[in-house]
């Protein structure tokens, strides 16, 4: 009865509050926009239904996150309103039980939140069924889709969040404490799960994520096929179920603690430390009331008072200091200033290792972990703006909440004093935070034994670049909270402002001039330093600082002082406050906004072309509409390129004069040449070695057509001369193109040089975009069985270039270095190739060159002088690769191989013919030298070297398998050959980790594989498994044959079908089933060791009995799994204890046994006492390892 009344009253009270409905409205709006914009965009790329269960679940999760941040006060109010308003003596003394009071309040809050979250489903329904949606992407209406999203995601989230928020608010007696609960959960959902505190531990991340961000947004997005994304309902099973149960448990625990610790008692200020100081105070004399007789008059001295700038400044500083102290001594402040820097140390330590291999903790790399632009919503540092919103609210409301509002409001002095004081206080908190982050970064470096701290770089970036970013936002938060005379609404507005900043493009706003605090990002690498990135960054930040100044004026004018709430009166007050200095400040701010904004606009939109995302889409559509008709016409083939490249690093300019040699290899005469030029560079006039007329010079869509007076006859060739000029014009909206910089210039032919013919890769690919622009559907990639696509070959070109650069730099281009000279204060390099190449790139930097040889092949590594850690390793791997590949497959066609470093943080490599390029990050790998650890960089180089043997393949389904899978199989073999079988097992073990490519059990079979899991993992595993069954020699034979047939360039381009045919040819009949299982269908072997026992049967004879279970499953592209019977040979092994540094223990017995489906017992004999036994112990067929490794078990000894 009482419980019902408490519930009813609370529910009715809040349901009548305006904020409840504001939250509702905000969620409807965001769900609507997300569905219309976010999901739509993705639905289009992937082409699943807009109203599929998956899309609905995704929107629900994202909106849950936003709900978490905007609506914590619902629970906070329910838990702490009585204490906050001072009503608690009345409620606490009413004859009610704790269970009734807390239960009623909690359930009311939960009911309200459940109600508010219905807005998400309402918003989605509205977005799906209101006009303006392309009917083709609408699936049937399925109530289950909405109900599962609401029931499995929104409701449990509501319960967990309400419980945590409620507990914190009840404990502290302050409604806003619930916001901290939200930030905590948000942090868990985002940072812990996405941020790989547990790198590669997807399962842990899934479990710990309270909101479902991880398992919906990243797991399902990745693992579900398009068909599943359209049709499959979210189910409560597996990780999802475990996660939901775990968090329900945590929530119940929080509630239980709240219940147990709650007292209907007077609240005194007590934290552990005030309790201690109180004890001391207790002894100090307490004056009783003041007797009349005791009154001897005490005169208060007359002291001078001043009112002016100086005293205002001092008052401001005093307020800044008290504000700082308030924050620094609060729980949330301690979290910011102690917990976060402390937690940063292990996070940085963790990030200084990638794929199990340590990285050099260079200051630039550490700083990368410590910084993020304000708008990076996926960064772990989103927590800072969220805390800033909270702190701003606390500071602005500090006097009013303490009941001192009227006294302070009646104090002399302008509104600038409290506003600026609080801003400076918040700023001081941030400065201290930055200092602590710096310390955390340095500490992490010390722990890793790294000594070159580069304090200056820390200061420059953290205080010079990151701090202003936060200060701008802190000011915005204060400006919102100041004039908004309702704390919760202030929070709501500030959070929405932040959401807008991070997701502005979702709301259709893209230009950085329109998004508060936004601007192009700065970048820093050791090679390039800041390059040209600081200028535009600074202009934009200055522009926003001018806005901040104007906002500060607005805040001052509308600052709440006194009791007046009405807008009319406040405007009247504002007019009074609009004094001459304020007016001048406002005028200065507006002037600065206009000048800076004008200057920026001149740069971004006048000097450079500014295109919105939809402009770009429209251009691509228009390109296709206008020029698609030329896609099939015969065009001459590019066979030779001769370039003269002048790079001016300091001026960030480049000029290219080039000659293309074009050959008509079609059967008909060609009368017109189509040339695709490149945006953002000036492609000058084009000349041919025979009379030609330009017919179309389309500089918007970058397509030119020239007609030849005399058609080019079959077999004839043509010379085309062109000129390309690249120079910076101010800066663009996205910043400055860093292709040519003072040190570390890098660009490719695709970036700048014209190409022949219609460019299919400029077409729109997403089905939705195509529909929207009235273009016919086209597959993302041609079918594997499309015979036409195999003919579409671009042969390699003969390449020759002279590259000039500054005198102190080295310029690199493909081909062998034929000469170098200095002329006019510039240095020139001439390169030419000795075998055809395809894509190519140019580099210029102050390189150091590390040279080595392999037979007649010159190995050159062009690297940044400091980046020397991996040079020898790279040379070793290049040599080992050349050894193995030339012996097994075919000769290396070039006289050189160049490895070139260029600016960037990436840790991977890229292979072009005769050239391997890598970003600076690769230089930071420092594999441990002990024999037990994996030398991943060695394997990566071997893999990239293998690309030199990649056969020309057709751009059809399965293309990545032809390139990456085969190259990784090659790489694995080099590792095995050069480093031994043990090391190969370590590499395989690494590759079987779910990070970065988690296993996908559904989808296309390997022959049609496109996904990175298929190409980088499953493909190599399949080839390796085959080599284990039929032998390395046979597999290599098949691959050699592939090169013989397709390598020369005469035959049609290779596809996986050709690979498959060659493999079939070398596979004995008895094992053809395996080939089929690996390539034609998606087969998964689940081999499980249930129990192993051993018994000594004599001297040197142990009988080992293995209970095993086997299952084989075939999954179709839609994800339907069918079990198929097994009757095949599988390895069985028995092992002695592992030796020092060995992955697996010493094998005592390894043999293939005939295995059938289901449970079975195998008995083998071992010569010594075994410790472990397993089925498929080396994971040749069953690729799941790590957590789920059930292939091997310990052996129980029976006597």
């Amino acid at each position, binding site marked *: 009865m009482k419980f019902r009344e408490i519930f009813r009253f609370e529910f009715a009270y809040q349901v009548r509050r305006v904020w409840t409905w504001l939250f509702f409205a905000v969620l409807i709006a965001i769900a609507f926009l997300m569905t219309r914009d976010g999901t739509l965009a993705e639905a289009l790329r992937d082409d699943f239904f807009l109203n599929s269960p998956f899309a609905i679940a995704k929107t629900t999760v994202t909106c849950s996150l936003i709900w978490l941040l905007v609506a914590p006060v619902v629970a906070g109010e329910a838990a702490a309103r009585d204490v906050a308003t001072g009503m608690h003596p009345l409620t606490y003394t009413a004859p009610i039980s704790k269970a009734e009071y807390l239960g009623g309040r909690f359930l009311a809050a939960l009911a309200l939140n459940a109600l508010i979250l219905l807005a998400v489903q309402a918003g989605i329904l509205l977005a799906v069924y209101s006009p303006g949606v392309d009917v083709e992407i609408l699936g049937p209406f399925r109530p289950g889709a909405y109900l599962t999203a609401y029931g499995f995601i929104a409701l449990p989230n509501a319960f967990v969040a309400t419980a945590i928020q409620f507990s914190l608010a009840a404990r502290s007696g302050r409604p806003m404490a619930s916001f901290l609960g939200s930030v905590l959960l948000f942090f868990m959902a985002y940072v812990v799960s996405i941020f790989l505190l547990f790198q590669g531990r997807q399962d842990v991340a899934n479990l710990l994520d309270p909101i479902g961000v991880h398992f919906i947004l990243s797991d399902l997005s990745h693992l579900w096929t398009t068909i599943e994304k359209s049709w499959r309902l979210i189910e409560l099973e597996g990780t999802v179920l475990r996660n939901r149960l775990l968090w329900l448990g945590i929530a119940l625990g929080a509630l239980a603690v709240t219940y147990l610790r709650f007292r209907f008692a007077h609240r005194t*200020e007590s934290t552990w430390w005030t309790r201690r100081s109180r004890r001391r105070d207790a002894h100090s*004399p307490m004056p009783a009331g*003041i007797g009349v007789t005791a009154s001897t008059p005490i005169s208060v001295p007359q002291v001078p008072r001043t009112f002016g700038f100086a*005293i205002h400044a001092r008052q401001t500083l005093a307020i800044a200091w008290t504000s700082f102290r308030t924050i620094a*001594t609060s729980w949330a402040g301690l979290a910011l200033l102690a917990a976060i820097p402390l937690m940063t140390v292990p996070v940085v330590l963790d990030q200084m290792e990638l794929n199990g291999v340590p990285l050099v903790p260079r200051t630039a790399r550490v700083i990368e972990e410590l910084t993020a632009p304000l708008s990076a919503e996926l960064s772990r540092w989103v927590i800072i703006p969220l805390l800033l919103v909270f702190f701003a609210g606390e500071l602005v409301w500090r006097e009013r909440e303490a*009941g001192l509002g009227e*006294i302070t409001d*009646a104090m*002399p002095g*302008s509104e600038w004093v409290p506003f600026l004081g609080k801003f400076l206080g918040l700023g001081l908190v941030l400065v201290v935070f930055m200092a602590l982050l710096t310390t955390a970064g340095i500490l992490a470096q010390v722990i890793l034994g790294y000594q070159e701290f580069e304090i200056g770089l820390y200061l420059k970036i953290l205080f010079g670049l990151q701090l202003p970013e936060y200060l701008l936002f802190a000011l915005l938060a204060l400006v919102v909270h100041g004039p908004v005379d309702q704390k919760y609404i202030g929070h709501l507005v500030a959070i929405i402002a932040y959401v807008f900043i991070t997701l502005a493009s979702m709301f259709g706003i893209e230009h950085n001039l329109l998004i508060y605090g936004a601007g192009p990002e700065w970048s820093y690498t050791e090679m390039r330093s800041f390059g040209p990135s600081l200028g535009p960054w600074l202009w934009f930040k200055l522009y926003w600082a001018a806005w901040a100044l104007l906002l500060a004026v607005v805040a001052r004018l509308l600052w709440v002082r006194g009791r007046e709430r009405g807008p009319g009166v406040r405007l009247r007050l504002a007019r009074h406050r609009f004094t001459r200095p304020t007016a001048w400040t406002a005028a200065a701010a507006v002037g600065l906004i206009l000048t800076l904004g004008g200057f920026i606009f001149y740069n971004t939109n006048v000097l450079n072309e500014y295109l919105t995302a939809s402009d770009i889409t429209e251009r691509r559509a228009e390109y296709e509409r206008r020029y698609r008709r030329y896609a099939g016409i015969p065009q001459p083939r590019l066979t030779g390129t001769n370039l003269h490249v002048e790079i001016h690093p300091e001026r960030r300019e480049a000029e290219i004069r080039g000659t293309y040699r074009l050959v008509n290899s079609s059967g008909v005469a060609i009368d017109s040449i189509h040339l695709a030029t490149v945006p953002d560079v000036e492609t000058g006039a084009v000349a041919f070695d025979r009379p030609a007329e330009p017919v179309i010079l389309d500089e918007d869509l970058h397509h030119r057509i020239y007609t030849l007076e005399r058609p080019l006859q079959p077999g004839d060739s043509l010379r085309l001369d062109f000129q390309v000029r690249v120079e910076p014009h101010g800066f663009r909206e996205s910043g400055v193109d860093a292709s040519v910089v003072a040190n570390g210039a890098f660009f490719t032919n695709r970036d700048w040089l014209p190409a022949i013919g219609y460019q299919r890769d400029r077409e729109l690919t997403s089905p939705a975009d195509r529909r929207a622009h009235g273009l016919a559907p086209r597959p993302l990639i041609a079918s594997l069985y499309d015979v036409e696509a195999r003919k579409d070959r671009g042969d390699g070109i003969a390449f020759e270039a002279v590259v000039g650069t500054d005198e102190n730099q080295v310029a690199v281009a493909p081909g062998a270095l034929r000469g170098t000279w200095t002329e006019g204060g510039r240095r020139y390099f001439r390169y030419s190739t000795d075998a055809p190449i395809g894509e190519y790139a140019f580099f210029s930097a102050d390189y150091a060159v590390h040279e080595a040889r392999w037979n007649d092949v010159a190995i050159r590594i062009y690297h940044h002088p400091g980046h020397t850690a991996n040079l020898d390793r790279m040379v070793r791997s290049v040599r080992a690769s050349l050894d193995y590949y030339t012996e097994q497959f075919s000769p290396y066609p070039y006289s050189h191989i160049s490895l070139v470093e260029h600016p960037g943080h990436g840790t991977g490599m890229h292979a072009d013919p005769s050239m391997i390029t890598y970003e600076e990050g690769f230089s930071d790998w420092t594999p441990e030298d002990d024999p037990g650890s994996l030398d991943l960089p060695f394997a990566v180089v071997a893999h990239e070297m293998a690309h030199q043997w990649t056969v020309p393949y057709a751009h059809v389904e399965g293309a990545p398998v032809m390139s990456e899978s085969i190259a990784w199989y090659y790489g694995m073999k080099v590792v095995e050959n050069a480093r031994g079988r043990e090391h190969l097992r370590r590499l395989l073990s690494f590759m079987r980790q779910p990070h970065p490519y988690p296993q996908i059990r559904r989808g296309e079979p390997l022959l049609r594989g496109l996904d990175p899991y298929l190409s980088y993992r499953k493909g190599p595993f399949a080839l390796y498994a085959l080599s284990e069954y039929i032998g390395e020699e046979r597999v290599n034979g098949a691959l050699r044959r592939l090169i013989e047939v397709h390598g020369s360039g005469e035959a049609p381009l290779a596809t996986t079908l050709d690979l498959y045919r060659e493999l079939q040819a070398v596979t004995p009949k008895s094992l053809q089933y395996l080939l089929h299982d690996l390539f034609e269908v998606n087969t998964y072997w689940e081999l499980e060791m249930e129990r192993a026992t051993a018994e000594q049967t004599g001297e040197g004879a142990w009988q080992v009995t293995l209970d095993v279970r086997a299952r084989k499953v075939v999954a179709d592209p839609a994800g339907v799994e069918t079990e198929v019977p097994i009757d095949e040979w599988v390895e069985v092994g028995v092992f002695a204890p592992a030796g020092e540094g060995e992955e697996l223990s010493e094998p005592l017995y390894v043999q293939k046994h005939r295995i059938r489906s289901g449970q079975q017992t195998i008995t083998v004999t071992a010569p010594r006492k075994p410790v472990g036994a397993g089925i498929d112990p080396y994971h040749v067929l069953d690729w799941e390892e790590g957590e789920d490794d059930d292939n091997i078990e310990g052996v129980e000894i029976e006597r």
Partner: protein
Amino acid sequence: MELHIRDVSKTYPNGVQALKDVTLTIPAGMYGLLGPNGAGKSTLMRILATLQEPDEGSIRLGDTDVLNQKGEVRKTLGYLPQEFGVYPKVSAENLLNHFALLKGIAERRARKEVVEALLRQTNLWEVRKQKLGGYSGGMKQRFGVAVALLGNPKLMIVDEPTAGLDPAERVRFLNLLSEVGENSVVLLSTHIVEDVSELCTRMAIIDRGEILLAAEPLGAVGDLRGRIWRRVISKEELPELEREHAVISTKLLAGRTVAHVYSETAPGPGFEPTEPDLEDVYSSTMAGHIGRRLEQSGPAVAS
């Protein structure tokens, strides 16, 4: 310096008219604003303390326009609101020092002196290091006074300051105020008649937003002489008495009811003349026998 309030009216958005054409002239010295709860005292006080805006009217303090020169007013203002809180985790000394800076006392030594003197004056010196969260209601009130007294205010607004004080503290507090009142305008609002009678040289009675009487307490009491009659009755007799006479107040005395009646002539047997006090002035004004209500409607009850 005088405070001139002219035709000030204020209506809240919910329709409650808090002030109706309030006009008062308040000279230096202690001025009492007497009225029941909800009479509009606090609204008027907050308007004078620059925290609220009247709908109409003007207020001048000497040459200063209170409504439009808030900054100037605040420099000479001491304000003690009816209800206020404190930062629980700060010591009295620190917070008072903070406010002293906000009031413009720039020099550190001067600030220290002032803070010490005020803490001694409000008898908080012994507990100056203690956190304000541990203060009793009276101590908090005295702390508020100390804040209000900072910077020698020329205009002191104290809103129901004695409500939470025990008798001794109240006396002490009133003494303090009267010292300030020697050369400043001190406006004290209260619903306790004794506060005014003990302290104020001038007073006004306010009810439902209207000033009913503005007078000097002694003069007002003098004017009533001979018009207040007293009769001791039992509780049952009261309704009849009220029907026949202008009863302005009743009081219990040892279980019997003492009724005061306003009458210009002797009301009859059983009544005895009594020496009027400020209480009677207040009651008569509220009942409409004297002051503005009388002017507006004539005698409320025929005698």
